[in-house]
């Protein structure tokens, strides 16, 4: 299958290993991966922060770049949720019927990685091996908007050698929330504290999730605490082999 890779801007810039791992996993399964180089950013930060005009421009750009693709996959639940939920909202609020029709047609073709593996490809075991103690944080957008929590756990459980430890309060938000993390830094930090405590309690060496944004926040906090827990995107675990 031809799969168009949608690499969120901050993954491209700050967490390229996640995107490389996504390529590794999809190619290992025998698929053709393409990367439309005209892509930049889905506009999540603009749309969610209320800067609708810029969000709209980036939504239109996304439709131009990916409109002809049948399968679009991103290693990020929140950016996929942006396309599926925020784009229709932006188009409706702007009264742009053409864009609304475009994004409604495009949305179902845009997938979060684990949901794509399990739901579209029907694969849980991707041939990965990762002999470490790992705990999994269900990122909110993946969990609630896309129902990805189950798929992410399934692909993780199929990894060889993994010692998967369940997190207390598994559905509680980590406190990132985009601009929330800086606008309401103190509340964000309180939420981070609760999540970091739960992560540390598991005794895991690695905390994983389907979104690098949550992991940037959680990992930044764990490093500040010198907690000795690494954060790794799910794609990197799935790409690991013996």
């Amino acid at each position, binding site marked *: 299958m031809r799969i168009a890779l949608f690499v969120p801007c901050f993954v491209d810039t700050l967490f390229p290993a996640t995107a490389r791992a996504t390529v590794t996993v999809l190619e290992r399964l025998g698929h053709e991966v393409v990367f439309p180089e005209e892509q930049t950013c889905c506009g999540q930060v603009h749309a969610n922060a209320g800067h609708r005009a810029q969000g709209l421009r980036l939504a239109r750009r996304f439709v131009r770049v990916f409109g002809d693709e049948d399968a679009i996959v991103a290693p990020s639940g929140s950016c996929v949720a942006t396309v599926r939920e925020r784009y229709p909202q932006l188009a409706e609020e702007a009264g742009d019927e053409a864009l609304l029709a475009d994004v409604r047609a495009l949305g179902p073709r845009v997938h979060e990685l684990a949901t794509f593996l399990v739901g579209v490809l029907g694969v849980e075991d991707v041939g990965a091996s990762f002999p470490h103690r790992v705990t999994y944080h269900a990122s909110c957008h993946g969990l609630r908007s896309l129902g990805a929590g189950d798929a992410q756990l399934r692909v993780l459980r199929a990894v060889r050698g993994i010692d998967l430890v369940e997190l207390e309060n598994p559905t509680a938000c980590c406190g990132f929330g985009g601009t*929330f993390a800086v606008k309401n830094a103190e509340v964000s930090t309180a939420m981070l504290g609760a999540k970091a405590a739960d992560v540390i309690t598991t005794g895991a060496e690695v905390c994983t999730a389907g979104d690098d944004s949550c992991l940037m926040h959680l990992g930044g906090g764990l490093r500040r605490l010198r907690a000795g827990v690494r954060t790794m995107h799910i794609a990197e675990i799935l790409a690991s082999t013996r």
Partner: protein
Amino acid sequence: MSFAAGAHDALGDAQLRANLRRATTTIRARRQDAVDEVDDWEALRERGAAAKDRALHDLAAQLELLEASVERAGGHVHWARDAEEACHVVAGLVRAQGADRVIKAKSLTTDEIGLNEALAEEGVRAIETDLAELIVQLAGDRQSHILVPAIHRSRAEIRALFAAELDRPDLSDDPAELAEAARLHLRERLLTVPVGISGANFAVAETGTICLVESEGNGRMCTTLPEVLITVMGIEKLLPRWEDLPTMLELLPRSATGERMSPYVSLWTGVHEGDGPRELHLVLVDAGRTDVLADPAGRDALRCIRCSACLNSCPVYEHVGGHAYGSIYPGPIGAVLAPQLARMEEHADLPFASTLCGACADVCPVKIDIPALLVHLRGRAVDRRRRLDPEGLAMAMLGRAFERPGRYEAAQRAARRGRGILAHAWRVGPLGAWTSSRELPEVPDESFRAWWRSR
């Protein structure tokens, strides 16, 4: 006070946070159990949302129907455009009775319009009879939760309060003993005060029936013992049909307290000779609601039945409590309701007081998509800003960088040297807000797209 400033105070209060954590954890679990035993909770939510939408999408006609039904049953209906008019109407009705005291059932709408303060100016003392409202009133405090206004208070604090204000130094901090003391304090007043004031959970347009849901029974006493009953209701509480009521009475108690049914559900239609009040007034309050209704993207907030499940499920609320929101309506629903009722002139920072995690939308019994509303209201708040602030500037620069891949890649290269918009975008807001608690990620030598081209 801004949300951030209010949150700062709350976060430093270890007792408050322990009280909140314990209370919200307990009530979340109880709600979940009560919801899980319903065969098709989703279908019930759909019916609830549809009933509220039928009311809201035809509100003008439905309100006139309600007025006719109430008057047919012997009640009087008054219309109030804003808080001031509503208070004026109620004060006039109380004055006409020559009363200097009124007893009140728990009512958010009367808190919203500042009725107690308005009555005090007329020399009328409003006596709150709901235990938690009484605690808040005696302490000169503010409510911090829609359903459990004194959720921020521990029983040790309540014991001290009753010792001082009710002159009961003999009490222990046993909840039953404290409740008994409040009961004794209130009983005399309930039996002698001639005017009762209540809110309404629902009012059925086709029958003129008003419905009040509560746990303690003091609300029922307020609505049945006095000679005159004044019910103050936001216009969005209307239900078109009698048969909508069972749906709501399945949804509300399970969502609110995790009970199958609340201990006291009172329904009254007009006045009846020899039973209950001899005079019934219904004050219909707009106070910004028709403005909310005029925004097709924002109006779903008016479906709210004030169950507070969204507060109890919200991780932000759990950490900071209700006072930080600075509104009688705190938590996720408050963040979408309060600014809209104030025409975005107040509380415009509340829509930003959320991570958009979506836990609130999962539990809402009338399916309000609170995260979508929060995003919509953020847009309205940003549109109102007159000057380009640092955030607006950063967003504009980011937007410009993302318009062309070439510009974007130049920004990526700058970020690797610690410069430019991509390196500084997360510093939007107070400088160092990110690094106050988190290390910065390192910028790798090679972006993904550079790697892709070279592979």
